[in-house]
């Protein structure tokens, strides 16, 4: 049964015992206004560089989640964390002072689902008690690394997405019973449908999301209608349209069950973010500010959180390479 490679169901599902989301002021004035644990003012929040500001956000998200779980830094056995910047500097400098054993993760915008998956497997294995998963992204820091200087006057195509300035973190525990369980995870494979346009990342990622979702549905014998919400991370408007079209063709129509973090974080028209939000802080923040809250208080029962990443490298792109996509799935279940 090779179809099920990457799908892991836990016999003793780990619990999410703490979660926190922080965001920049633009994100915090969107539809999720008032739901963030902390809002950062301006682009730098008093720091000297955008990169430092991102590290500060990530550290803040990690601290808040640990605090909300009523734990101390020493109680966390391992951290899985990442961001979009080269060498994951947002994370390396952000989490430096916590002194938690650290494993860096890069999965572009899919990093949050990837980190939660790894943390869940570690906790479920019984070798450790608690793990934390943290990711962040920063509009200014990633714009200057991947695209153009901020003050450069170019027109963004309508298919382009807006990297969110945000961070989210989740504390997982095998010991304590929490309201939210990670029932299963599904690691996706790299899927490349030869999209080369770095201003249309949604199109590069949609096939990966389809691949992972279909693999999971086939393995479990379930359909989208069996879940309360299918939450993709950062496909944006263009990618979401493609996803629903493709899922129809695959025989798993999403009909009303689908939400996308990139569309939940921003008001597309008013905030002028074109196709929607993106970045690993986007899905992390939407999950931790809103969706986990709803699972916690019973408004949602079952959620498939599937974060998609466009594994885009400016170097490879300039060499004529296409943009591969990857998508990882986390099956979350709230208590009765």
């Amino acid at each position, binding site marked *: 049964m090779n179809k099920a490679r990457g799908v892991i169901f836990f016999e003793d599902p780990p619990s999410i015992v703490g979660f926190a989301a922080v965001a920049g002021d633009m994100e915090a004035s969107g539809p999720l206004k008032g739901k963030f644990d902390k809002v950062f003012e301006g682009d730098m929040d008093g720091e000297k560089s955008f990169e430092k500001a991102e590290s500060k956000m990530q550290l803040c998200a990690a601290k808040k989640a640990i605090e909300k779980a009523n734990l101390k830094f020493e109680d966390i056995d391992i951290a899985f964390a990442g961001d979009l910047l080269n060498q994951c500097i947002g994370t390396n400098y952000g989490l430096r002072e916590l002194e938690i054993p650290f494993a860096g993760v890069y999965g572009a915008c899919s990093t949050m689902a990837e980190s939660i998956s790894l943390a869940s497997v570690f906790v479920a294995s019984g070798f450790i008690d608690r793990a934390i998963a943290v990711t962040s992204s920063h509009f200014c820091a990633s714009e200057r690394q991947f695209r153009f200087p901020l003050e450069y006057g170019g027109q963004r195509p*309508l298919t382009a997405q807006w990297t969110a300035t945000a961070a989210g973190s989740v504390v997982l525990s095998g010991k304590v019973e929490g309201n939210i369980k990670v029932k299963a995870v599904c690691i996706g494979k790299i899927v490349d449908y030869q999209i080369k346009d770095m201003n249309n990342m949604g199109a590069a990622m949609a096939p990966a999301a389809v691949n992972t979702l279909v693999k999971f549905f086939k393995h479990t014998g379930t359909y989208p209608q069996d879940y309360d919400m299918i939450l993709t991370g950062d496909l944006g408007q263009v990618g979401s349209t493609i996803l629903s079209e493709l899922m129809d063709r695959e025989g798993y129509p999403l009909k009303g069950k689908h939400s996308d973090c990139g569309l939940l974080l921003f008001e597309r028209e008013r905030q002028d973010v074109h196709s929607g939000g993106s970045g690993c802080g986007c899905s992390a923040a939407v999950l931790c500010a809103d969706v986990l809250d709803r699972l916690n208080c019973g408004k949602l029962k079952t959620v498939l959180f599937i974060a998609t990443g466009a594994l885009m490298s400016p170097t490879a792109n300039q060499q004529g390479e296409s943009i591969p996509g990857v998508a990882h799935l986390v099956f979350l279940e709230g208590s009765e």
Partner: protein
Amino acid sequence: MNMSYEEYGKLVKKCSPNSPIFKTVPLSFLVGGTICAIGEAFRLWFVSLNMSKEHSGIWVSVILIFATALLTGLGVFHKIAKIGGAGTFVPITGFANSVVSPALEFQTEGFILGVSSKMFIIAGPVIVYGTIASIGSGIVFYIIELFGGNI
């Protein structure tokens, strides 16, 4: 997913909105035209002050470059550029912005490795190929002149 890359490309095209050219093209005409008209107003003024043709042209460029640099620094230029599109990047204002914006952005990496070395990341090719083309045309001019032609 049972689909060829070509088929998927078609689907992507169908689902991706195009730039609204009925808006972008007139706007680029208006903004680009206005920038050129401002340049022309200055040029006429300089000429009326008995400045030479060459010098008046240079001062027009310098004034537009100065205005662009100021607006870029103030964070206003990209807002005009978002509306103007090619109307702002085709005139010399686009060249100036492409030099000033990375200079501004890479402050955090210092004045040698940041500001000055990144200054030409966008404008560099313009100067390189402009120079190469001028050398190419120079060779042709020179050969024409060698054979007694008038250039």
